[in-house]
């Protein structure tokens, strides 16, 4: 008997029992479900939730693979074993050594994220007696990509439990959540364990250990794995060129560094009509507008070079798109169909404000220069309000038209 038949017979055996959703989920995940529509079928679409989720994961894969190489690259670069590459295909970057370090550091993050998250999902499905929803497939892939490589695994596990239970399950599971679960997990990590989520030690594997060794009296050079944003927030010189930032050879969370590959993912999502181009475009516009305003403030000399906001404000406006997690957040998390605005006009407003507020937070909150996470979470909360007013506005407009006609 094949595995599929075995699973099917198990499903029939446990039908109606408490464990049934768990078997159903494994079965549906590995194969096509055997269930056929019982009453009259209506419209058949192949793009069910599972396919939607898989498409997003495909769009994320380049970022994940690049992230693994980059984890190793940053590590080896920091300890001085290799020199910096200049082209995208530099052999010092795409080496087996880098990949080994990357796999060693990133794969556990992926495993913990999926293992813990799906365990919580299965548990809730069994207790509440509904089918396991596919919603966690994307969240589970997003989470390892938006945390620093050196995040301790138990912290990630705690955060995943918190994010899935408080961010999603208490609202009724997939499709009912107000906040993006992946960002809820990241926000929890950030507020609970700030020393592991910011600063100049956590972004490059080995920097924390090196710092401990130096504190223990070893004669070694400290590793500074500062992100571009971190350096800017403290008014330091940025050691990376714009092409480095665009291609992604910079320290940062695992999957967020390469704007090029994120752009690729964005094109893929737009082409398959999974991600909303309106949100992505308007968010980029919002960021550019805010960046231009700050550049204007600097060139009008309203603030001096002594101001602590000076270096972030004077950052060229388009650099904001390729540094930090902005691109990743806008493409993969602002577009989450559950938590974003639903109406087309609402999407423009929602996206624009995300871009606008992200850069605002970046500049004015030097303690934590990455604003895109908080901007998206804030706009998640406001998305239903935006939709409400868009719909009301539409109703009003049509009422007016009706009145003119009948009058």
């Amino acid at each position: 008997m094949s595995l599929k038949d075995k699973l099917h017979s198990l499903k029939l055996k446990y039908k109606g029992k408490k464990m049934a959703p768990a078997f159903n989920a494994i079965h549906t995940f590995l194969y096509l479900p055997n269930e056929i529509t019982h009453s009259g079928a209506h419209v058949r679409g192949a793009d069910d939730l599972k396919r939607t989720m898989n498409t997003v994961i495909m769009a994320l894969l380049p970022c994940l693979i690049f992230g693994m190489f980059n984890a190793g690259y940053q590590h080896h670069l920091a300890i001085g074993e290799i020199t910096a590459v200049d082209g995208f295909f530099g052999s010092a970057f795409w080496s087996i050594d880098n990949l080994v370090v990357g796999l060693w550091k990133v794969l556990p993050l992926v495993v913990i994220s999926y293992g813990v998250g799906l365990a919580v999902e299965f548990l809730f499905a069994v207790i509440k007696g509904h089918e396991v929803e596919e919603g966690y497939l994307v969240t589970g892939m997003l989470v390892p990509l938006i945390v620093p490589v050196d995040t301790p695994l138990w912290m990630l596990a705690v955060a995943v439990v918190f994010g899935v239970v408080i961010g999603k399950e208490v609202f009724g599971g997939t499709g009912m959540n107000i906040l993006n679960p992946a960002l809820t997990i990241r926000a929890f990590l950030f507020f609970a364990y700030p020393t592991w989520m910011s600063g100049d030690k956590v972004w490059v594997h080995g920097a924390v250990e090196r710092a401990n060794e130096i504190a223990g009296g070893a004669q070694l050079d400290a590793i500074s794995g500062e992100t571009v944003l971190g350096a800017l927030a403290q008014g330091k010189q940025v050691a990376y060129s714009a092409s480095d930032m665009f291609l992604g050879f910079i320290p940062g969370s695992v999957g967020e560094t390469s704007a090029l590959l994120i752009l690729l993912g964005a094109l893929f999502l737009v082409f398959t009509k999974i991600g909303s181009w309106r949100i992505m475009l308007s968010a980029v516009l919002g960021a550019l507008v805010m960046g231009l305003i700050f550049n204007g403030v600097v060139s009008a000399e309203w603030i001096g070079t002594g101001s602590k906001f000076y270096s972030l404000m004077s950052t060229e406006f388009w650099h904001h798109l390729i540094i930090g997690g902005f691109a990743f957040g806008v493409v993969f998390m602002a577009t989450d169909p559950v938590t974003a605005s639903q109406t087309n006009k609402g999407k423009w407003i929602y996206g624009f404000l995300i871009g606008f507020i992200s850069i605002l937070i970046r500049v004015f909150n030097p303690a934590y220069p990455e604003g895109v996470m908080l901007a998206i979470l804030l706009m998640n909360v406001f998305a239903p309000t935006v939709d409400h007013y868009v719909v009301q506005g539409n109703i009003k407009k049509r009422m007016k038209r009706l009145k003119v006609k009948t009058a």
Partner: protein
Amino acid sequence: MAEVTEQKVKEPKEPLFSKKNKKLLTDPLADNNPITIQVLGICSALAITAQLKPSIVMAISVIFVLGVGNVVISLMRNIIPSKIRIIVQLVVVAALVIIVDQVLKAFAYTLSKELSVFIGLIITNCIIMGRFEAFALGNGPWKSFLDGVGNAAGYGLLLVIVAFFRELLGSGTLFGIKVLGDPIEKTGLYAFGYENNGFMVLAPMALITVGVIIWVQRSKNKALIEDH
């Protein structure tokens, strides 16, 4: 004319701790808890529950203010003109809160510094005015006393539960004693890489902790779940 005989309708004397009176005291502890069921007094539950010690002091203060206040209002209930009853109630709470504040300042100065304005803000605690209005104005002093103590104890109980989790997970201590080991010298749990959860110390986690307690309570007692 018929003779009007003065007939005193004498209520049957109730024992001090009759079933009904006991219920006044125990109901607010669980099934009618002011925080988890009536959702009152949330503000102070957020503000001072980061640590156990101030929570307990707060709980005792509120028990005193509400217990005594309820008795005072109940004794005055027939002479308070209903138009100005809110002001009278405020005067009573204010007087009691000032007593608590002064006592704390005299005997536990550091603690009173820690609690700062929140002792003064007991005046605005919705539970207190709520019990004056809803109970003390219509019941005798003994019952009002039990009701006041019961409600304040229910409030205090929640405060202590929330503070227990927030102090244990947020600072790794209980009453300031390092029960999980020393985070700087890396002893106890910290030797294994454990770290305090800074989020627990922030106010949002108090709200979420209260939310989880409400969740647990209602899933244990389905009768508490409102229809909607």
